[in-house]
């Protein structure tokens, strides 16, 4: 029987990638265009989940990763959206 090992590095970066993909699918899929409030709701959901996870030691790295993915997604995903908009216009 193998004992599961806790890797903060792996958990953190996995959560960053998951959070980033979540934003990419959300914004890329056009869900944000349905209602302006959905933009805030999506970020709030990710932040809320991340902060909640930070209260549990074994999930802390995952929570920190989810929270960290917010600014990364804002900087990268929005750049992609603006570039697409520039090409389409």
């Amino acid at each position, binding site marked *: 029987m193998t004992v599961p090992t806790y890797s*903060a*590095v792996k958990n*953190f970066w996995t959560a960053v990638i998951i959070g980033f993909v979540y934003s990419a699918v959300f914004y890329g899929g056009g869900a944000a265009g349905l209602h302006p409030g959905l933009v805030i709701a999506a970020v709030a959901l990710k932040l809320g989940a991340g902060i909640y996870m930070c209260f549990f030691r074994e999930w*802390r*790295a995952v929570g*920190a*990763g989810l*929270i*960290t993915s*917010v*600014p*990364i997604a*804002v*900087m*990268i995903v*929005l*750049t*992609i959206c*603006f*570039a697409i908009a*520039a*090409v389409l216009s």
Partner: protein
Amino acid sequence: MPARRLAVWVNFSSGLLMDFPVYLEMLGLRLHPHLLAELVAYSLSFQLYLRVRRLSVFREATPPFEQMMWVIMGAMFGAMFGSKILAWLEAPQDFFAVPFQPRRLIGGKTIVGGLLGGWAGVEIAKWFVRVRTSTGDACVFPLILGMAVGRVGCFLTGLSDHTHGVHTRLPWGVDFGDGPRHPTQLYEIAFLVAFALGLGVWFTHAHRANGLLFRAFISGYLLFRFAVEFLKPSEKIYAGCSAIQLASLAGTWLCLWSLYGRRSQP
């Protein structure tokens, strides 16, 4: 089995006579140069950071990841807010135009704001998790690489990127579509390459004080930005300076002050 080759055709509009923005056609897609350069810059600099931090000289200064993840978070949030706030202050009439459009606030980023905001975010996070060592030295060369690649995208985007210089009659002036201008993006790339070489030589031969490399990079780059901003047609609405110039001066002063504080420590 012969190795498969993936042919990627990159077509510039017409050799050296470019029409800005210079869209890049790859695999049938028409890509905006800024998007491509920015994504390449993020990827390359992150890959370089992962390699650089394994070097023993940087590894010794790196705190455990349980603390470092909060520092990374602080850097990301600080960079996001810093780059945005300074972009708003740089051209307030663009972002706070009447009628007010919240969507305008999303556009625009500045490197100086990102650097200073990221630094502030790191220091706040380090104070919270009680990290005493400097963590910025390993970021210097990845930052330089990312900024230089990103500036290629700024150059290829042309006038709409608002990073070009004022009009000039110098022979190396670049016509972005309204007459020859200072290619300030190329000046910055040249500076960054020379600065990286200089810092690399100095770092390998001189005393490797913890945090000194990062402060040397920040102060050198900010001084360059303060000077080169005079060649840009930006609004100088703050006592004859732009917001980026004031932020550059403030950042340089902070660097020198923190260096002096380190020297005076026993």
